């Protein structure tokens, strides 16, 4: 069970909102890069987010670049899962590869600052603040296996190959 607060964002939050290209010189200095996470979507996010909190977004979250640094710094600042109406393909794969759950659900029913409980096994989101109970779409089996090992690198270290 994951618990934390919702940080609400809109549609089409791109990888440039999360980790802009102008900070590319910090990509080999991840703790410094993480201080700027989501900066161009909400400059106050990095200072307010705490361990376990959720990013709750609209449609097409993470569109744009293949830069894995985007889900990496989101993971580093303690976000326990991303909830969105839909997510861009490369970002989805990158997040799962880093062990960061991305859950597709109707995020209109969650408000900024709501306290959430997410049950990854049952596939449910419980909005404690407003009482709404949501279900999220099933993650594809292959990605569930990777997520279950904590990401792609630990998965490959364990099995030595793809086991489909």
């Amino acid at each position: 069970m994951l618990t934390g607060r919702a940080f609400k964002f809109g549609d089409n939050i791109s990888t440039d909102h999360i980790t802009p290209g102008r900070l590319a010189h910090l990509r080999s200095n991840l703790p410094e890069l993480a201080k700027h996470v989501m900066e161009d979507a909400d400059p106050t996010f990095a200072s307010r987010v705490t361990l376990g909190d959720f990013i709750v977004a609209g449609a097409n979250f993470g569109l744009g670049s293949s830069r894995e640094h985007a889900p990496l710094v989101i993971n580093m600042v303690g976000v326990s899962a991303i909830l969105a109406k839909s997510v861009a393909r490369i970002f989805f794969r990158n997040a799962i590869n880093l062990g960061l759950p991305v859950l597709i659900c109707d995020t209109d029913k969650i408000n900024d600052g709501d306290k959430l409980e997410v049950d990854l096994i049952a596939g449910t989101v419980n909005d404690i603040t407003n009482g709404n109970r949501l279900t999220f779409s099933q993650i594809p089996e292959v990605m569930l296996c990777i997520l279950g090992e904590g990401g792609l690198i630990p998965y490959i270290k364990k099995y030595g190959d793809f086991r489909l």
Partner: protein
Amino acid sequence: MGKTLAEKILSQKSGSDALAESIVVAEVDLVFAQDTTGPLTIRQFQTSGFEHLANPNKTALFLDHAAPSPNYGLSSDHILLRRFAQQTSCLIFDVGDGICHQLVAESLAKPGDIIIGADSHTVTAGGLGAFATGMGSSDIAIAFGLGKTWFRVPESIKVVVTGNFPGGVYAKDLILHLIGNIGANGATYKALEFSGDTVDSMAMSQRFTIANMAVEAGAKAGLFAADNITKDYLISQGRGNHYQSVFPDADATYEQTINIDVAELEPTISKPHTVDNIVLARELKGTEIQQVFLGTCTNGRLEDLAIAANILKGKKCHPETRLIVAPASRQVLLAAIKAGYIQKLIKAGAVILPPGCGACLGLHQGVLGDGESCLSTANRNFRGRMGNPRAFIYLGSPATAAATAITGKITDPREVV
């Protein structure tokens, strides 16, 4: 049962009946990273415990995003990539060689290949019939080590393009129009497969422009059949032996079919801050532009520079508008010098950048100031993309870019030619 291009290539390479929605593991013919994704790729490769590349001659690194490096942080990343290439004997393309996707097209990609790169515009190689898609550093690191990866076989959307392009209208206008119609996530997880009379006679440079932007509709791949035009292109690159014809089956199953008659299109612009926010260039007439950027993996090829040079020939850029030009590769730059395009552009007031990504992603070489607007031939106009979240990016064709450089305001190129 007939197969789409995506299904055909993934079936052949995975040795299985790879129909849409199935999951396959396939060997890759090329796996690469560039200088902003490569350092993390190398660290993930090392964390995974790999010591050797599965296929050094099918693994490449490109120093193109920060080329030459604007600061010591990125210079150190370049050192890391060069050392890794020395240690592993992989291919490396250094500062000044050009943009990874252009170099992959010129020198490496073959029809029927599977190509994965740690860069979202890896889809560009779909222009010559390769199944090419972007992935992140972890996936690329594992493919460095294992020589393969897993794919969900995408459903395909068939885009049938017919008619003749009116004067001043190009492939860029077509792909902006398509993305505007289906939306920035209109093809997420899917492949866009382009066909029709217009595509059958379309030059490779325009096919690459369209394939390049498939990802801006969320697509996993933007695919063209490999035909005689592909063959002639490979021959011109000294790679005629790399050609094989690749076509979808006539009875392939598509998720949907979209028909576009290009005769009905007009010069098109994507407004800030999403690519699907399209309007016609004439509808933005009068919008002041401080910077015009001609280049990138979308529109930095010889044919693109030719279009702009011919419009700007004997004319001057507007005094309040700067024109920045970045050829996509060393080969493009040399050919553009030989053809006289670079001289025409410089005389019109352009500044020429070294081959590479240039100003596109906001690292250097054309960062926008507060409140400034740029007309760019690139593929993205997200907030902050060109280095400043308080700036505005409009996307258009090389012709629209050249016309806008002359007037200093967004201009339909049909008004100046």
